[in-house]
């Protein structure tokens, strides 16, 4: 299947080349092209309805609402930039929620990627029972965002729970993590890292695509494992790292369910699990402040866009596509 994905690239390019045949300008061709257009848009009807009705339309409506005061019951009243000004100058909960979310993204995502890459390399190292280990490492990522796991996670980290007792055994007395303002965010990060399996599978496929000759050549030149990692593995894997970094970062900004469940919807202790989306949800659907929450949504969109652009831009200097320099 990994072979298949590389093949996809090859045939994909070939078919693109085939598409670039000069188009004959006869009337028959124009009629045929029109028929093609009609066929394509027929196939795309569901997607087009969804794209405009559930994505673009709502996005713009959110933008409009963000400049208003709206509580669902009376018509929105225009307030200009008030919501945005209030967010940044007069709402400590918002600033705190933005801070913990940024911390969660900036620490959790690199950590998760590092663990995923390390596990993928370990898996790639020997073949003994590799399928079993691969499955064992992968399973948490399928369920990591579920309510069940959030409940288990909290049970693991409560005072005198399994984690607390295990650490006490080694003389580390941290107490419960759930009620501790300093430890509850690390606990959420650990939950994210625990679900590293999906990312690991993608890294593993990338590792298997690196030609073995590269390592053999490095062996002949006497390169050690660290040099091989820096000069072969990382550059060859950089497109996959880029893909994972982008999707994982954007995903991490949107953490919701586990934080909501672990704090029973309160965002506590002391607002430390009041992640961005939890706070947005509470403002919109508990307090009915639709305008204010809409402003929050657009701030999130802009931040995510900036981060995505930053990752794309920076990728030009560190992402290496095989065959570029040929």
């Amino acid at each position, binding site marked *: 299947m990994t072979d298949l994905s590389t093949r996809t690239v090859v045939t994909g390019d070939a078919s693109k080349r085939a598409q670039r045949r000069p188009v004959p300008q006869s009337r028959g061709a124009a009629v045929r092209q029109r028929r093609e257009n009609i066929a394509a848009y027929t196939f*795309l009807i569901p997607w087009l309805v969804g794209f405009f009705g559930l994505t673009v339309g709502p996005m713009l409506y959110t933008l409009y609402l963000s400049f208003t005061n709206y509580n669902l019951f009376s018509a929105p009243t225009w307030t200009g930039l008030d919501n945005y000004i209030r967010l940044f100058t007069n709402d400590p909960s918002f600033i705190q929620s933005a801070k913990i979310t940024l911390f969660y993204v900036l620490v959790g995502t690199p950590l998760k990627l590092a663990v995923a890459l390390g596990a993928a390399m370990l898996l790639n190292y020997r073949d003994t029972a590799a399928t079993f280990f691969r499955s064992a490492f992968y399973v948490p990522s399928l369920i990591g965002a579920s309510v069940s796991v959030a409940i288990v996670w909290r049970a693991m980290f409560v005072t005198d729970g399994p984690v607390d007792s295990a650490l006490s055994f080694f003389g580390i007395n941290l107490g419960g993590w759930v009620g501790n303002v300093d430890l509850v965010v690390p606990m959420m990060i650990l939950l994210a890292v625990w679900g590293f399996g999906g990312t690991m599978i993608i890294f593993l496929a990338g590792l298997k695509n690196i030609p073995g000759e590269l390592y053999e050549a490095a062996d002949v030149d006497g390169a050690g494992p660290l040099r091989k990692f820096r000069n072969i593995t990382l550059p060859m894997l950089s497109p996959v790292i880029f893909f994972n970094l982008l999707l994982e970062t954007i995903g991490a900004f949107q953490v919701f369910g586990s934080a909501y469940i672990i704090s029973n919807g309160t965002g506590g202790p002391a607002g430390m699990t009041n992640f961005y989306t939890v706070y947005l949800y509470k403002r919109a659907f508990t307090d009915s402040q639709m305008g204010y929450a809409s402003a929050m949504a657009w701030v999130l969109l802009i931040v995510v866009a900036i981060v995505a652009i930053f990752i794309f831009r920076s990728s030009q200097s560190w992402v290496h596509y095989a065959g570029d320099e040929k």
Partner: protein
Amino acid sequence: MSATLQTTQAVVTGTAGPQRRVKRKTWKTIIWLIAMIVLAAVILYPLLWLTLATLKPSSEFGTNPGLIPEQPTWQNFVRVSEGIAGVPMWRFFWNTIVLSVVATAATVISHALAAYAFARIRFKGSKILFTCMIATLLLPFHVVIIPQYIIFNNLNLIDTYIPILIGKFLATEAFFVFLIMQFIRSVPRELDEAARIDGAGHARIFFSIMLPLIVPTLTTVAIFTFLGQWNDFFGPLLYLTSPENYPLSMALKMYNDQTSVSDYGATTAASFIALVPVLLFFVIFQRFIITGMSSGAVKG
């Protein structure tokens, strides 16, 4: 370990070279195996703990953090089977199954249609629409939920499954469109060109040629949709208000909210019951899940 080091050692130790190398390799494998087993144990511990904790009586949760229940009992399952808020457990299961099955069927069809158009038809505007589609991949969904909620509220569709499922019919998961596209592109074009010469239109080609060929990738999409819907919490939290419509995730939330009255036993048992189908699903469909993950992302 570099080959040069090994050869130097072989020279120094003389004739014992090859055996030594083999021995080193076995040792490395053993160390690797131990590391892997420890890692797997740490990773799977919470699931193992959950499984055995379902047998602990509620009173044991504060006192026994270990794996093995001191006084094992089936009582937790008995209480859970009775349900919560006057709704029996089977009802939550049934709701979850209905949601997941409809979501899966709708997602597969709508996304395959969109993917076919993008991958196989040359049409005006394809480039810009494709870019738009990929852009939605990066869009945080919170920027659309408030108007969506307002619309469904005005249409009196709160507490129905329509707001949760409608996106599945409308191909809103860009990642799946992309995944299916990649697969369609790997199908040789000669197949549909031959059909075109025989006079088949795109509808014929799609249904009789393409669909059977892309079953593997559709299976992957189906599995991920099913599991995603099974675990979905946000949609039901937002749109469902009466417990008899709740799926398992919301039933668990009710158990969780009640933990102040503390029935840890029942909460744990309910969490376990909700996870078992997912784990079974994984065991059965492992191959599709893992190959699907890899083929979507590695673009070479």
